Each structure stands twice: as structure tokens, then as C-alpha cells.
């Protein structure tokens, strides 16, 4: 019940394409869902986050889609760029952060 399942494990996208990463959770007590971006040797950096009272949030090229009934949320990166190549973690917050297993994104130039 405390798990957050993330897929895919790795993703290769052409420059300009759309990157889509999915997460699913079980615990309905979670009430905050952030996405973190991590470059090698660096700490995770907050990218975008959503609460379950909205179905979508967009910030620049990054969009979170949230499906409360399905207990799923996803990150869409529009017009993906080589600089977006990083590992992306979804997370869910109840009384603590539960992180997904991560998706290694590579955007080809």
C-alpha cells in the first residue's frame, strides 16, 4: 500500500518528441504528487507537483496528468530536448515521501 510503481524503467526519445512517464499508487491517503528530476551526481530537484483535486497541471513543457479514480498520474515532457536527459522520479506524499523506482530518460539529438 505504500508503494509507488513507476514505468518505464528507461525511455529513449528523439529530440522534439513527447516523453511520457507513468506512476501508479494504492494508498488513497496520499495527497501530494511531485515529480523530481535528477542528473548524475546531483540531488533530486523538484520539477512539478500536483494535488488530487486537479486533473492536470502544466508548467512550460512539463505537464502532470492525474487520474484519481485510477490512482495513476503521469509526466509528459513536450518537445523533449537533450538537456532533459536525466532520471525522473515520481513520488507520493502522505506523512512521508514515497518515491517511485525512477525512469532514465535519454533524449537523442
Amino acid at each position: 500500500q505504500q508503494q509507488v510503481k513507476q514505468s518505464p524503467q528507461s525511455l529513449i526519445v528523439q529530440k522534439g518528441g513527447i516523453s511520457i512517464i507513468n506512476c501508479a499508487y494504492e494508498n488513497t491517503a496520499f495527497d501530494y504528487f511531485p515529480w523530481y528530476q535528477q542528473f548524475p551526481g546531483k540531488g533530486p530537484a523538484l520539477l512539478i507537483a500536483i494535488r488530487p483535486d486537479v486533473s492536470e497541471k502544466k508548467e512550460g513543457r512539463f505537464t502532470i496528468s492525474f487520474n484519481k479514480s485510477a490512482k495513476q498520474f503521469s509526466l509528459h515532457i513536450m518537445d523533449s530536448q537533450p538537456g532533459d536527459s536525466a532520471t525522473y522520479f515520481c513520488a507520493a506524499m502522505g506523512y512521508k515521501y514515497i518515491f517511485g523506482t525512477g525512469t532514465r530518460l535519454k533524449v537523442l539529438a
Partner: protein
Amino acid sequence: EPEVTQTPSHQVTQMGQEVILRCVPISNHLYFYWYRQILGQKVEFLVSFYNNEISEKSEIFDDQFSVERPDGSNFTLKIRSTKLEDSAMYFCASSEPQLALTYEQYFGPGTRLTVT
């Protein structure tokens, strides 16, 4: 832009030794956290700290671990007797009082702990 800093960046220690990992959270933040990330795996919550006491801890945070805010700026994680399986990247994070309600946490660059 203010950031969370951590020292050392890499710590090598022998099994059974004590290590102290240090963090300087963002100056006006009052909530502090430690996480660990075993190589290639997900980030795992260890402990949260507020008002000079532990507010939450995970099952990983056993009696070998302790946290302290020894002064107004540092936040430390002590591992009393390191084991091989403690080898990981340890991240410190902090959040502002008001933002704690939105759970926005800012992470440091991490300390890589290698236990030999």
C-alpha cells in the same frame, strides 16, 4: 539562489566505524529530512526532523542512526557502526514552514558513503 549543501561529497569508512554526514539546510527552513539512495535504486525516506525532534522515521532508521541539529545551521546524520549495506548516497532535504504544507522539499547534492 539558496541551496542545501552537504559535506563531505564522498566518505569512505571501514565497517564498524562511526560516520557523521553533515548538511546545511536553506537558512529559513525549519523542516529537515534525510534520504538514502542505494546505487541504481529509488530514493528512500529515512527521517524527518522539526522543532529539534524526530517527527517521522522509516523502518530503515534503526538504533544505529541518529540525527541532530547541533547549532542553528547544521543538521547531521550519524551512523554509529557502519555496515556494508549502508553504502549509498545520502541526501539531506529541507522545506520552509509554510511550504511544509505543500511538501516542497529541496534536496542537497548528496554524500556518497562507501563502507569497506
